[in-house]
């Protein structure tokens, strides 16, 4: 379970201000953060992931108070507990599909890259329909294929929490549905908690809970408990 209490976040030299009095996300649920650009959706995702630290307040995930962790501990937490999918895919152009999927294991000494991991990466790629493209480089993939690679990379460590930032923002409707199917199939099978930032209201029906940032002022953002706990 993710619990956010009395959270305040401001960027230095900026008027931006994100304030969340209380927000809860239950384990194993699918949640969408929806709202206008600049409303703080991605910032909140980064705060949950431990990429950013709030100015004040508390973020707790499955009993771990992220705001109380050091940089190193937050990184270790992220590696072991969180999978991230970005709107721009963030694939490395110089790595082929397989190496891009295996990237968390390449860059984190804490994750030993054993043969079983490589087999799992290939299996995930097969499952999302890019099994025959393991040796290809990102520039030779379609947008949909790139996002599928990014999804495989995010779920390779089998994280209990999957955070996705506009995962379908750059995709056409067909690929959008495919990627969402892949994400939701995985989440339902594995019991993973999904928190997804989106501005695409057409896909909101797929999520169990929707936190609409539009209904709050940025300075007084409060969680809609009823919606979040639905």
């Amino acid at each position, binding site marked *: 379970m993710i619990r956010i209490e009395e959270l305040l976040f401001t960027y230095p030299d900026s008027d931006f201000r994100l304030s969340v009095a209380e927000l809860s996300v239950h384990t194993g649920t699918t949640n969408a953060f929806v709202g206008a650009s600049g409303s703080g959706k991605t910032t909140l995702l980064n705060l949950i*992931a431990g990429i950013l630290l709030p100015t004040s307040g508390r973020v707790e995930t499955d009993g771990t108070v992220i705001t109380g962790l050091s940089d190193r501990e937050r*990184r*270790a937490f*992220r590696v072991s507990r969180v999978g*991230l999918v970005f709107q721009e895919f963030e694939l490395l152009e*110089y790595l082929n599909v397989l190496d891009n999927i295996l990237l968390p294991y*390449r*860059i*984190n000494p804490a994750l030993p890259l054993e043969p079983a991991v490589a087999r799992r990466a290939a299996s995930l790629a097969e499952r999302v329909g890019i099994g025959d493209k393991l040796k290809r*480089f990102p520039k030779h993939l379609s947008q949909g294929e790139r996002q599928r690679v990014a999804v495989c990379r995010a779920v390779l460590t089998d994280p209990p929490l999957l955070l996705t930032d506009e995962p379908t923002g750059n995709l056409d409707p067909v690929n959008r549905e495919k990627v969402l199917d892949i994400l939701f199939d995985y989440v339902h099978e594995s019991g993973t908690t999904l928190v997804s930032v989106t501005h695409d209201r057409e896909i909101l029906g797929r999520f169990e809970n929707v936190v609409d940032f539009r209904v709050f002022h940025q300075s007084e953002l409060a969680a809609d408990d009823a919606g979040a706990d639905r």
Partner: protein
Amino acid sequence: MSGASYLAGRYLAFHRWKAALLVTALTLILFIPIGLRVLVRQSSEQLSSRAQATPLLLGAPGSPTELVLNSLYFSSDVPAVVSFAESGAVAETGLATPIPLYVRFRVRDQPIVGTTPEYFSFRDLRMAEGRPPAILGEAVLGAAAARSLGVGVGGHVVSSPESVFDIAGVYPLRMEVTGILEFADTPDDDAVFVDIKTAWVIEGLGHGHQDLSRPEAAPGVLKREGNVVIGNAAVVQYNEITSDNIDTFHFHGDPAAFPVTAIIAVPNDDKASALLQGRYQDSATLQIVRPETVMAELLGTVFTVERFVVAGAGIVGLATFATVLLVFLLSLRQRERERETLGRIGGSPGAIRFLMGSEIAFVLSMAVALAALLTWLASRYGSEAARVIVGI
């Protein structure tokens, strides 16, 4: 291999042309000043050591440099000649042992060095196989000349005409190879050694032809006047000296007046050296030089030029290095997003720095390794290359 090293390797492999360009630029800016210095120092040492091993040199007045380069390094620029009699004059002083040299002709690219047997002991040249030339028309090859010409003991070499369009000029002489010298790592390795008389035969000062008193030579007789027989153009001239025709070879004129390009004078001691130099100091027909001094002056000029070149290379190197640094910095800036991504998926700042640093370190170490290899090659083969480049 660590994950970061693997990623660095993948990055460089993906951007291999960019990496190769950087490595090449860095290799050159490292190698040019160092390699040039090694090359110049080594060549100068080699040139100096041969000059130091040649106490005095006599030749016709003119450029001392040309005289030294032709006599010691067999360069193709032939100095003015002096008469062979000057060699005898040196011997008569009792101050030095003269070794005449006639370095004018070539067998393809290899210089023909006409000299006397004393030259071999003076230069400490040893036979690898065969024997020294004993009679007219025999030749001994330096190790590199034998390899270059592809000739062994028992084979033959032919002197090259100086000009293919000069039908009245020097005729080629076919010479038998009687020996190959041991490798000496000096210009002697490239030479074809013959007796000085053989060099004069090539010059055309001595020759062999049909005995016109014999019946089979009748077509070559133009007219007979008592004991005098005048031949015509049909007389068969020999272009090879063999045991059958060697007796027909003879010289026209006084050998004392025949040409030599230089005379190496090996003084008995320092005093004899000083006396000999004093004796020829004011000669109008001869110059006497200490090759060591001549080469020191020449190398002084070379070192001055080298300093300018190295300084220029240093400035270019700094500019290139600054450009390469700029490329690295721009590349790092361009990859800021990649660094962010790696950080967000759990890469520690240290691991990310190691990844980026590995790429730069790999490029730098490749450049250093290649520059070291080129420097080694320059030190190993540079002096040979330098001799080819400067034509000595």
